[in-house]
């Protein structure tokens, strides 16, 4: 038994907000350990700490100890971690399409020739030994079970190939001890995924490499992992032996969270109401958040929640309907065919959209609060204009002042630029802008992300009261608890499909399984 990597009581906070609290586990040679948890559970922060990413040092380091082969380490740069025998297979491929497979595998680790006059040249001016590159990469490819010509260009290879080349690159490290897989199967086909699992097993069992396997696919975790570490809200829920847990148990541990607030008044069942919008075969092409051929009914007057893990497609829905991402399919809105990919038409028909990307899509950062709040209504509906067709400062300012009061926007006045506002107040400005255009159906995405508690309550309360005034709300959020507090129904999106539509009171287990589907 030899411990390769050991974490002792790792804690980390950003600006006083704890994101990791006392995480410990030990990883042995040849062990495959799955790390599971919802988005924001702290998995990526943990990996950043292990690899010594700059973001950790820039925010004040971390507490606790990280040991490799029994020695305490604190890497200042990811390159140091790599030199010490850690490897990472990224979720997004770190490969250069214009270079050969072999050149990618050996990038910045090229063997140098010391033939003839090369002997006398400084390192960087030595010629690269292409034969050795070819041989090394062939060997690395064989280790991961890939039969591929190393001299081929990356350009044109399938996603599955790229994934294996990434692994081969890490395996090529002479002293690779620990290999981290960050959701490696997310982009693979089923057969590619099973081949990948075989490879991982081979690396661990035959080559003795320890593996950290981060995945949402509980099936795979169950199949491949020896041990499981569950994180939730930055806390260690536990380290388990894989055979001691079944999938349902894992799902429950991942999600488990007391839900105590329910909508107070009893209402007619949403299913009995009319559809305000019906989607059929609806697809959205949004990088990293694709939706494929979904059917969905949005009921008049409800709050519909859209949940799911990051990268599964939940954000695609609102962006597709709002016309910001290319969408296709059949959509009926209030009994009329709804034209897709036409943001203007959508707004004119009474749709509202609060983007998840506040700064990029939601705000004019160098314009006043007044201009921000009035923009949509003035541009789409022609409001706040004087008889010459020019923007009416006075009217706009009055309205902005009312909104500032209603939403309790903390600012120096309606003339202040939105760049200077806090995240919560910026979000309030966005929401004020969206509702100024009087939408009938409002899509709200991640309204409380990066928002302080006070603003969060104001925003959620406002959404509820808006709903009580008859506005249908579709709320997309990564925070399941938020959805369960506010929504009538919650659609869970996984792998670009709606895996299940649940009620807020359904069990944690069902939510967990639906998200991991």
């Amino acid at each position, binding site marked *: 038994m030899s411990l390769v990597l050991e974490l002792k009581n790792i804690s980390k906070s950003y600006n006083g907000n704890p994101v990791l609290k006392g995480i410990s586990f030990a990883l042995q040679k040849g062990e495959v350990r799955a790390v599971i948890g919802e988005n924001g559970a702290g998995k990526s922060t943990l990996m950043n700490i292990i690899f010594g990413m700059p973001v950790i040092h820039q925010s004040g380091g971390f507490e606790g100890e990280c040991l490799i082969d029994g020695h305490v380490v604190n890497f200042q740069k990811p390159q140091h971690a790599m030199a010490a025998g850690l490897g990472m297979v990224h979720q997004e491929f770190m490969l250069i399409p*214009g270079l050969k497979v072999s050149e990618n595998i050996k*990038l910045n680790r090229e063997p140098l020739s010391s033939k003839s006059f090369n002997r006398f040249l400084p390192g960087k001016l030595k010629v690269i030994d292409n034969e050795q590159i070819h041989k090394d990469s062939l060997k690395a490819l064989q280790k991961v079970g890939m039969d591929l010509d190393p001299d081929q260009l990356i350009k044109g290879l399938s996603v599955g190939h790229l994934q294996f080349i990434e692994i081969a690159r890490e395996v090529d490290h002479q002293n690779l001890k620990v290999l981290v897989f960050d959701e490696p199967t997310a982009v693979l086909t089923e057969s590619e995924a099973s081949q990948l699992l075989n490879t991982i097993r081979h690396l661990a069992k035959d080559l003795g490499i320890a593996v950290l396997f981060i995945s949402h696919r509980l099936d795979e975790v169950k199949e491949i992992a020896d041990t499981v570490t569950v994180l939730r809200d930055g806390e260690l829920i536990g380290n388990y032996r894989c055979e001691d847990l079944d999938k349902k148990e894992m799902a429950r541990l991942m999600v488990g969270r007391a839900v105590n607030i329910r909508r107070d008044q009893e209402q007619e069942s949403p299913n009995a109401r009319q559809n305000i919008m019906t989607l059929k075969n609806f697809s959205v092409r949004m990088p990293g958040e694709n939706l494929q051929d979904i059917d969905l009914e949005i009921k008049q007057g409800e709050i519909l929640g859209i949940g799911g893990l990051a990268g599964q497609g939940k954000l695609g829905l609102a962006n597709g309907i709002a016309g910001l991402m290319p969408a296709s399919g059949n959509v009926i809105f209030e009994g009329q065919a709804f034209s897709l990919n036409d943001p203007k038409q959508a707004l004119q028909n009474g749709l509202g959209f609060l983007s998840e990307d506040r700064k990029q899509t939601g705000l004019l950062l160098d314009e006043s609060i007044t201009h921000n709040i009035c923009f949509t209504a003035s541009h789409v509906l022609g409001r706040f204009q004087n008889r010459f067709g020019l923007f009416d400062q006075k009217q706009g300012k009055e309205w902005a002042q009312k909104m500032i009061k209603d939403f309790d926007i903390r600012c120096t006045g309606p003339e202040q630029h939105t760049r200077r506002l806090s995240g919560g107040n910026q979000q309030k400005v966005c929401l004020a802008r969206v509702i100024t255009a009087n939408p009938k159906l409002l899509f709200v995405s991640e309204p409380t992300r990066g928002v302080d508690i006070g603003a969060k309550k104001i925003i959620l309360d406002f959404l509820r009261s808006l709903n009580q005034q008859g506005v249908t709300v579709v709320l997309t959020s990564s925070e399941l608890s938020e959805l369960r507090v506010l929504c009538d129904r919650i659609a869970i999106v996984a792998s670009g499909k709606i895996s299940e539509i649940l009620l807020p009171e359904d069990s944690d287990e069902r939510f967990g399984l639906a998200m991991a589907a």
Partner: protein
Amino acid sequence: MRLFPKKFSVRDLAVPLLFVLLCLVGVVYSGQPASFLINAIVERLGRNSFLVISLIIPIIAGIGLNFSIVLGAMAAQIALIFTIDWGFSGIGGLGFAFLLSVLPATVFGFLIGKLFNRAKGREMVTGLITGFFSNGIYQLIFLFGAGAVFPILNADSLLPRGVDENGVARFFGLRNTIDLSAVQYALDDLIALPRPQGIVIPYGTFLVIALACLFVWYFRKTKLGQEMKAMGHDQHVAEVAGINVNRNRIVATIISTVMAAWGQIIFLQNIGTINTYNSHEQVGMFAIAALLVSGASVSKASVWNALFGTFLFHTLFITSPLAGNQLFGEAQLGEYFRVFVAYGVIAVALALHAWKGKKN
């Protein structure tokens, strides 16, 4: 060494083909005997190739077309001005100028590299403006500083500037032209070999150009060359792999600037005079246009592009005024035409590059 890229696409070939056609028209309508044309083209190949080759390494490193090689040319002129002023001559003098130019060229290259790192994504426009800006500084130094702030030994090269309060004639600022006859053809004629059909072949210069080609070819195979190639394709991935991208970009800019300085020295030793305030101005534009007519792009170029491009561009350059005169009775027309061609080919290459970059 591979002679040609593996695959030709229509787009790769369209520009050079168009130029071959233009050149043919130019040659046919120039009304000059073949011997005249060949002589002129050979001379210009020797004169210009080195400058064009100096553009290649920043392209490999992903910086794009280095519009600031103008500063390399200035470094060359600074070196030559002092070489001549201190009385050096012949191949020894020229060698001294080569060495001397390395100093300012390295400093300039370093500064430009720093600047490019600050203006990532708009290196080319920054390089262009840097060229203009430095031209002003250069003017300030030589038009007002020479002879006033720092000494110029040879009083004949200074401008007369009236008289001071005591009635003594004042001299400062360099004259518009500086005679380089002390070093003219020192490199071109370094190696005396027979002249076939009376064609003057600058063997010495051709040898140096061959060495430059060899250097670039070798450089691409080194570790540093491979790093630059990787960052040229994808800076982010290269950075993640631990390559020091910013430092390599500075190194690439320095190499390019020093090579440009040497290129300009070669150019001027052939011409035989320095146009103190103008010789460097158009260097960037003509070198870049020459490279691009061969079908090279903002992100891809080889020594073959440089040599072939120089050949095509200067064939057109020589023949277009002649053809303009023959066809329209107006040499001026041909001169305007070749300038238009230079700017046009750069505009098209830049647009295609941005267009392609956007699609990816």
